[in-house]
């Protein structure tokens, strides 16, 4: 009996996966545990391994196809076995697979490749989009839950075919200058673009060709998520200067002990994480997210703190789970290992899931404050700047104190200014008097 190969659901938010490559052709023998195809979710790309032995009988989707999770993408079975000619249209109900799927595909390895994000679309729409070389992410769906239908793709293709009116010479020049005519204002009748309209528009050539890097993989994910967050979330950023004197003392006192126990050094990041976790316990609205339909605010029971880590491939945010329950030693252990994995591209998908709050530390650079963009669907993100000796008043004298600016961006849909300010004040206080953390 032929066994289905499903598009795995790799995270709670994953709705679709993009097939990056097939390792097997139809008719190829497949061993259990052998990678069959590579898939890109909104967070990561992985190789999906076979959990059956046999022959790859059928594959229904091609490279770059965006497939809803739990959709049958192919079959593995005995040679000559009969399988459906076309893929079953609707994905299996999520409930049935949700529990077992992550287990089945836990044995996956990250890879680097292309992405297309999560888009609801009918298979026919996908086929037409592929035939026309257009991206589903560029169009709007008219179906339920914005699902893209075939007609939506046709409409999009037709609209895209209506190029801006331009003279032949203007078109040739624009092509040479790599200028998008849609960005040029035409001076002619009916806004027709003439060659002279190109000057001063867009990126004019300076003679030297710019370097070109395709926006894909992690870059594409970061680009999409940041753009979405910045454009949909009403961000407010609060700043607070935090005196680090006591945190420095705490760190030096615990340093040797922690190195001895974990092999890793204690960083301010972990002290801050501890303080943030503690403050989040007191301010549940900051450890929250908006439900997908935006009808409810979800107050998370667990405090899972994400750490923004810069890698060669781009920004990733591994998550320290249950940070609120961990002591400094455990936090050091967890965050150091995650950061290492991130830099070595060995992060597992689940290690980037479930975050409820994010810390972005730029303290190693000459940065004081900044406006971090919220890692959706979280409610807030804390940006940490450099520590520097700052004049402060003490008993009528000017003294210098090591201070760091904390920048807290919060989602004003979820939480208001006053409670967010109260949270930031608590974080500040916990770091300035860190012994409270021991309570």
């Amino acid at each position, binding site marked *: 009996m032929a066994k289905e190969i499903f598009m795995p659901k790799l995270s709670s938010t994953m709705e679709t996966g993009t097939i990056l490559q097939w390792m097997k052709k139809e008719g190829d023998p497949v061993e259990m545990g052998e990678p069959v195809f590579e898939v890109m979710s909104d967070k990561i790309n992985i190789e999906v391994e076979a959990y059956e032995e046999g022959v790859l009988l059928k594959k229904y989707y091609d490279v770059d196809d965006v497939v809803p999770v739990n959709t049958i993408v192919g079959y593995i079975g005995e040679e000559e076995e009969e399988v459906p000619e076309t893929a079953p249209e609707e994905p299996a109900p999520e409930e049935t697979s949700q529990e077992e799927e992550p287990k089945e595909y836990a044995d996956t390895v990250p890879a680097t490749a292309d992405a297309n994000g999560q888009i609801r679309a009918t298979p026919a729409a996908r086929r037409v989009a592929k035939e026309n070389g257009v991206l589903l992410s560029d169009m709007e769906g008219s179906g339920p839950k914005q699902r893209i239908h075939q007609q939506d793709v046709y409409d999009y293709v037709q609209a895209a075919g209506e190029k801006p009116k331009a*003279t*032949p*010479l*203007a078109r*040739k*020049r624009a092509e*040479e200058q790599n200028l998008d005519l849609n960005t040029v204002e035409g001076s002619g009748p009916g806004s027709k673009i*003439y*060659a002279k309209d190109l000057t001063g528009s867009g990126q004019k050539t300076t003679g030297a060709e710019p370097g070109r890097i395709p926006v894909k993989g992690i870059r594409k994910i970061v680009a999409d998520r940041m753009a979405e967050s910045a454009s949909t979330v009403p961000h407010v950023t609060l700043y607070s200067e935090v005196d680090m004197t006591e945190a420095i003392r705490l760190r030096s006192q615990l340093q040797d002990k922690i190195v001895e126990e974990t092999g890793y050094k204690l960083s301010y990041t972990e002290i801050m994480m501890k303080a943030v976790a503690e403050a989040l316990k007191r301010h549940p609205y900051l450890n929250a997210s908006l439900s997908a339909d935006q009808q409810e605010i979800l107050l998370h029971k667990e405090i899972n703190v994400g750490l923004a880590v810069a890698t060669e491939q781009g920004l990733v945010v591994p998550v320290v789970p249950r940070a609120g329950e961990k002591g400094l030693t455990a936090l050091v252990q967890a965050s150091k290992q995650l950061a290492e994995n991130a830099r070595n591209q060995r992060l597992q998908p689940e290690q980037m899931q479930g975050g409820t709050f994010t810390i972005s530390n730029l303290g190693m650079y000459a940065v004081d404050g900044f406006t971090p963009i919220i890692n959706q669907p979280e409610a807030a993100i804390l940006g940490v700047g450099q520590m520097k000796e700052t004049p402060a008043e003490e008993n009528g004298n000017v003294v210098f104190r090591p201070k760091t600016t904390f920048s807290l961006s919060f989602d004003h849909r979820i939480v208001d200014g006053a409670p967010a300010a109260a949270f930031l004040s608590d974080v500040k206080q916990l770091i300035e008097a860190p012994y409270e953390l021991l309570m």
Partner: protein
Amino acid sequence: MKTYDIIIIGSGPGGYAAALRASKEGKRTAVVEDRQLGGTCLHRGCIPSKTMLQHAEILQQVETAAEWGVQTGDISFSYPQMLRRKEKVVTQLESGIKGLMKNGNIDVIQGRGRVNDKKEVMIETENGAQQLQAASVIAATGTTPLVPPVKGLKETAHFTSDSIFEKKELPASLLIVGGGIVGVEYACLFASLHVDVTIIEMKDEILVEEDADAAAVLRRSLEKLGVTIETKAALEEIQSAENGLVTAAYTDRGGTKLEIAADEVLVTAGRKPNTSALAQTSVQYDNGFVRVNENMETNVPGIYTIGDLASGGWKLAHAASAEGVTAVEHICGLKPSMHTALIPRCIYTFPEIAAVGMTEKQAEASGCHYKTETIPFQGSGKAMAMGESEGFTKIIAEQKHGEILGVVMVGPHVTEMIGEPAAYMHLEGTVEELASMVHPHPTLLENLYEAANAWLGKGIHH
């Protein structure tokens, strides 16, 4: 004091076009004219000479037709009758302009107008002086033939393009001083009417401002018509001789001193601007012409200058009309609708010469990478059938995109045909679009099509 939104001084093709446009925009408009409506173009330029050239062309055709089997018996013509027809054409067109002015509720004030910086317009009329106030003034007073400072010329009776048709009979011989556009047109006209014509031109070649190949074709044609052409010749002195002739002493290009005698002298050595209407203003000048910006406005806000009087631009009737429209549009706060940078140029010789855009010389001077393609009319079926296969079509185009920089055409009807390449240039079509548009056969315009294809290296016949 009567007030107007716009007062236009001069009713030539610049002035009356401006007036009509202003009236269409609902502006209270007056035109001040001290001679006849229509200006130089209608009365002393384009229209009289084209009418007379048409007569000459028909005479030529009839003469040629005898060889083709069209027998007409003895051919004769009446110069006075030709002049009368010319008058009729002019009168009819003038009354047309009068009608347009009336329909547009444009006040036409007969008299010599002058304006000051306050845009008060003083007019000397037959019934005394009159003063008007305008919000904006457009000076369109044009130019007058220039008589160069040649010894004896002022004192000797001579004609200019203003006066040449005042003489009611044909001279046996005519000396034309100046081989520019006006000079060669009159040379064609009178030589076709069997007048013995000599052109004396101080520059290297006739039509020095146009394409050298075009000038060479025209020179051959003029010489075939019996015209003597002395280029790079220095005119020393002109004087009246006792036998009623005029003699001219000159040094030819070889340095030889020569003298010729002719019945009449026609001076076509350029034109000078009529600036008296602006004498009381503080407008600025460039080489005697009024300095204007791209809206045709002078340095005095609200005072505009268009046409021949304005510096820069082509001194052509249609350029003046376009500039007039541009000035009015600016006054009305409208977006300029005229592409005044692209002015086709037409010379009504036999064969005609027409050009648009850059000449080859200008293309070279611009430093861009260009390529030219020239296709002669000798291979054109239509031109051969017409018995007029002299001339060529030349495309000057930038190499990278095939942007058409300029087109020169020499041959029959090219003054009509130049509209096609001009349209391509105006709409920024490149050589590729021109080459891909199927042209009807047999036509003269196939020549342009052929040139475009040959430019791309895929000419069918070339």
